[in-house]
């Protein structure tokens, strides 16, 4: 089994707010992230796939295909977007880094050919990242 990781970058804005919370609760739980005008990050996405090396091509996965799927499913939908208002998953869900990693996994998992998705890692900043392995 060999693991292959492809990186991509996208920039997007978001804010954290739960309509079931009072305004005070929202501010206490989410702090500065509760500012409704939003704020942004340069996200780095790392997608790791795994599989056996194809003896004919020497590849675990066709990197070109992986790059295209990541571009179509993630970057086109999220790059330079306001996640809360423009990305369907986040119209009714808080766009935390955790939920972003899960949403990206769900967008990618059925679209990959041959190789199996192993991990989605989303860096919100260089000092904060979330890993999702598809666990329930």
């Amino acid at each position, binding site marked *: 089994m060999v693991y292959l990781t492809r990186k991509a970058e996208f920039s997007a804005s978001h804010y*954290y707010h739960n309509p079931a919370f009072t305004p005070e609760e929202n501010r206490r739980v989410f*702090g500065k992230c509760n500012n409704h005008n939003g704020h942004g990050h340069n996200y780095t996405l790392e997608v790791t796939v795994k599989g056996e090396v194809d003896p004919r091509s020497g590849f675990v996965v066709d990197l070109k295909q992986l790059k295209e799927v990541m571009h179509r499913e993630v970057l086109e939908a999220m790059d330079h977007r306001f996640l809360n208002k423009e990305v369907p998953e986040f119209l009714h869900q*808080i766009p935390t880094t*955790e939920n972003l990693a899960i949403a990206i996994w769900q967008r990618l998992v059925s679209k990959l050919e041959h190789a199996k998705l192993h991990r989605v890692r989303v860096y919100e900043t260089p000092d*904060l*990242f979330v*890993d*999702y392995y598809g666990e329930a």
Partner: protein
Amino acid sequence: MKAHLSRRYLFSASHRLHSAAMSEEENQSTYGKCNNPYGHGHNYIVEVTVSGPVDEKTGMVCNLIDLDGFMEREVLSRYGHENLNTMEEFAKEVPTTENLCIQIYEIVHRGFRFAHLERVRLEETMMNSFEYAGESLLLR
């Protein structure tokens, strides 16, 4: 759904690698420059990984306010700008980054209640890093 959250923190500290169980020559040959009696320092980066179900109300594994507060109180203010050799946990143990990584793991494992600790990764320099996950294996 279960996710893993990792956060990186910086602190600076000094140490000297010297084992009371070794002769002067042995210390010198084992630790080289790190055996300098006056010590030396590093900018350590500690990367903590916690896991748990993503809370539907907050979208979080744990609130960063809690994790940052805990790390500041229990780890960064404890070790930041200290000479590790003078600390009680290193009275009988060499303050290698392996041992420091284990100490930090134990502090977080014992005290942090808001998510499950998966592992602690400690970078001594950009070239060296160490990971500890308790007795469990590092599978990922």
